[in-house]
């Protein structure tokens, strides 16, 4: 991601020296990031489209698949549905639609992609953000305790347990949890989401997949290690020692550099992994999210849906890293000047 940032930033700088003078630095940084994001999304859509186009199979043939027929894929269907035959025309028409905010309609269900994705995207957002919160709730106390007290009888087993937990494959962990809830606790509705009366999902049910993904997504161990090391490093810095010597709050002094920055860093960098884990957890727990939708769409080669989700996932990831960057700059205002100077050099 960095090389692309650099090339585009140099472009903004050349034009920026003229027109952006007087514009606050934050706005300039923001403009640059938005431009980078746009380029990134364009790149993602091209790559995803190319992969889909080169993959065997035709989404349109699926609509004619009945019994006893292989059938020429998409014979007459392309024309009937008004889909261009050439790949570039198909891509360009998709792109033109997207720029106008129209992501097209799913080939399989005929539903507008944007509407469908925003419906299930919310569920996935809930799942990923919730699981991130769970990860932090578990990891942060362990890491901080270990950073302050070092390796001892309490922190060592806790840390080890967290490492083992992150090493478990999430689909397996999901099944184990479901079985526990079913057979040991007999709490079926909790594991299935509905008491069988045709009512909507049980609210409590939502907790289970969130906790499973939060514990099992593999980031738990990493968050602990990263945070413990950073916090440990900051705690041995001179300014913290000074603070301690004069009786000021160590926590207050160490908070920004030893806690906020490492946590946002790791959260941002783990978003792609969380999205990947969500695909599996959604499948296991029957969770109506983006992961399940993209899985079905991939099997069907339903390209408008896949493209829409790819773009949205890229937006998620990019937003995460942007947020991290802004937190970093907010905590350490020198940082933006520093990087700008480094780039100018």
């Amino acid at each position: 991601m960095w090389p692309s940032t650099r090339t585009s930033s140099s472009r903004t700088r050349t034009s920026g020296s003229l027109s952006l003078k007087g514009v606050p630095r934050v706005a300039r940084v923001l403009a640059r990031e938005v431009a980078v994001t746009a380029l990134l999304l364009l790149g993602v859509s091209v790559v995803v489209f190319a992969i889909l186009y080169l993959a065997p199979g035709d989404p349109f043939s699926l609509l004619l698949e009945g019994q006893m027929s292989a059938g020429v894929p998409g014979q007459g269907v392309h024309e009937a549905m008004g889909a261009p035959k050439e790949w570039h025309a198909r891509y360009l028409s998709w792109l033109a639609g997207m720029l106008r905010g129209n992501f097209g309609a799913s080939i399989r269900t005929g539903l507008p992609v944007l509407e469908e994705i925003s419906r299930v995207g919310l569920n996935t957002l809930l799942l990923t953000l919730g699981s991130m919160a769970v990860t932090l709730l578990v990891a942060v106390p362990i890491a901080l305790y270990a950073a302050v007290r070092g390796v001892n009888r309490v922190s060592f087993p806790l840390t080890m347990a967290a490492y083992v937990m992150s090493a478990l494959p999430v689909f397996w962990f999901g099944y184990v949890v479901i079985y526990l809830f079913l057979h040991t606790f007999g709490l079926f509705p909790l594991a299935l989401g509905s008491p069988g009366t045709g009512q909507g999902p049980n609210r409590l049910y939502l907790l289970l997949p969130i906790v499973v993904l939060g514990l099992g997504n593999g980031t738990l161990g990493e968050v602990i290690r990263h945070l413990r090391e950073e916090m440990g490093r900051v705690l041995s810095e001179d300014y913290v020692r000074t603070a301690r010597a004069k009786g000021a709050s160590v926590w207050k002094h160490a908070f920004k550099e030893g806690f906020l920055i490492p946590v946002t860093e790791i959260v941002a960098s783990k978003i792609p992994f969380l999205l990947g884990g969500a695909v599996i957890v959604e499948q296991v727990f029957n969770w109506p999210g983006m992961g399940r939708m993209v899985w079905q769409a991939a099997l069907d080669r339903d390209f408008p849906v896949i493209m829409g989700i790819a773009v949205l996932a890229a937006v998620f990831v990019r937003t995460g890293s942007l947020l991290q960057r802004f937190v970093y700059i907010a905590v350490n205002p020198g940082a933006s000047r520093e990087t700008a100077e480094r780039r100018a050099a």
Partner: protein
Amino acid sequence: MKRVSVAMLFVFGMTVAVSAWAAGPRKDGRPDGGTVNYGEYGRPATLDPVTSNEMVSLRITELVFNGLVGINEKQEIVPELAERWDVSKDGRTYVFSLRKDVTWHVRPGEAPMPFTADDVVFTYNVMMHPKTITPLKVRYEFIESVEKSDDHTVRFTLKRPILNALAKFTFKIIPKHGPSNPAYLTREDPFVRRPIGTGPYQLKSVSGDGEITLAANNAYFKGRPHLDTIVAKPFADQNILTQALMFNAIDMIVLVNPRYLPEIQGDKRFVLQPYNALSYSFFGYNLRNPLLADRRVRKAFTYALNRQEMLDSFFNGQGTIISGPFAPGSWAYNLDVAPLPYDPQAASALLKEAGFSPGPDGILQKAGKKLALTLKVPIEKESEAVKRVVLAFRNYLKGVGVDIKVEFEEWQAWKEDVFFEHDFDIIFATWVFDDSADISSLFLTAEIGPWRNNFGGYSNPEVDSLLMEGKLTLDHEKRRTINRKLHAVLAEETPYTFLWTLTNYTAYHRKIRHVAIHPYKFFSYADEWFIEP
């Protein structure tokens, strides 16, 4: 299935009258009320009978719509929306007299609309419109035209008389005022998600996570169905689906995965009910490969497989070993042809006869060419049992000195390799039939080519002429004789190693009574199901 055809011949060319049912509650003394929640593996894309092509959708359309004629539990053609029909002497004209007491499901803010001949003409026109994408089109190309004679009479003219034409008029009728587009139906039309029909159940709601609620149609022309509500719940996992039944979160599973049969069987609360499937699995050979072009080699492979053992251990024995190209539930199946027994010695002898001898590594070879082949298998949703079958295949053939390399491929990639590139030696697959038992597309020489069904390149003039003859004849007995002969020839020629037809099982809670099931459409008789209070 034999009875079907007899019944059809009987009605052919004559008029049938029906006793009229009255709308309103049924007077059969069975209680009304209750809800049945059934679990489905996967969720439907569309719910109308024209654009949908998945079994999950087909089952729901069976509850919401009616055809001109239906098929009863004894597999006989019975009147539905048409109360009687006349067939001309030459078998080319079918005139249907429609019921006058049928109304469409009422959408909020709409007056009740009667069902008329216009709806029938509309349905046919929509189905055949070039912009409507439906797998049904090819099935109804035999119809030349449809006209409305008056509000309650329609006349179908056929291009040529065909056998069992009446059974084809089971297609579901959709209302003229239903779709928003008056000429054709696409998946973007709201009607495909909120359809209305004439059937025993009316679509009430579809929840965000795909739960479909159907409510009893009080004005159903055969009388109000007994169950108040039927709810379809989608599941993404077979295991969880089974657990949902065990924990009473659902009352019924349409198709139980064979793996979970023992678990349900041991539970007194549930009924496991078998129903026949018109499908079979097979290993298909690519006859373009010179090694497989020799009939003796293909037959040797069949001898080398212990099919009964595979069926017993991978599918709990729930199925029938077959010997030929028809499903055993079909009238076309020839019971006189017995499946080849498991006989590795016979296999080795045949391979020896074909000129193969063991090489230094134990693999058979002929003129320096090893008998090594690639088996391509599609990865489907539930591939566990399939995996075991193909690995067993490899081991059995290893036993007689054949080297099989198994390659698993994603569904679309597999289809392209098999049907388009013809880049395979052996495949494992399943054919699913509709009610017609027409296998001509599988073995006709004319069907060899890209995206045609004769993927193995099988060509035999005798089979060709039998298939064509069977297609053209209007005499049911003659067609049966032809199919029996075809069965015998193809069993001997072994273009496939025919494996088995699996028995489908539905599982449901004992409280649901009078459950009769259509082998293919499932819910055809659900209006008579009831719950014992």
